[in-house]
């Protein structure tokens, strides 16, 4: 089974953890700051499947 159909753009990024206050949301590995200052959440595919 394909988990990912097609990779549109791949980019190297620094992963940051989510603030402690939010605690761990299963399926989200962390987040990263995009070039324009926006935030992108990083999915934890493993966590998504086992939840």
């Amino acid at each position, binding site marked *: 089974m394909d988990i990912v159909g097609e990779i549109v753009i791949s980019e190297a990024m620094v992963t940051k953890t989510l*603030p*402690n*206050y939010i605690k761990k949301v299963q399926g*989200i590995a962390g987040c990263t*700051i995009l070039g324009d200052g*926006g935030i992108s*959440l990083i999915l934890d595919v493993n966590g998504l499947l086992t939840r």
Partner: protein
Amino acid sequence: MAIVDETAETAEDTQKGKFLTFSIGKEAYGFEIKYVTEIIGIQEITEVPELPVYVKGIINLRGKIIPVMDVRLRFKKVAIEYNDRTCIVVIDIHDISIGLIVDHVVEVLVIPPENIVPPPAVKTGFHNRYIKGIGKVDNEVKLLLDCDKLLNDEEVDTLSVSLE
């Protein structure tokens, strides 16, 4: 050395009894100023799934990721559209930085301890859970919030437990 100590003490003293007041709906609330690190305008919030409704998501504060909570929703009030008066008050408490979304920030007030009374003993709703005291300023009352309780609530605890 003695001079350094003195300035540190002065900083503490100048913050004593000062409250940042803000409004949500018709009510005026206040925080102790020592918790407040900055006030910013509303900005783009990235939603994070599986959080209580009042935690709106996370924001990028100059490279630091901090969660933001909508105080209006925290108090189970009706949500309103954010506008140019909506502010995010960034507070720092026990090494946790968090942004609190409020309708608008009013002013910094000095409320002497003798003008602060404990909240009424009747156990009704959130007022007793989150309110540390009631400050009397002229003819108005300011509800002084307990930042600690606002952040650390059994609801949040249940959430983290259920995810484990």
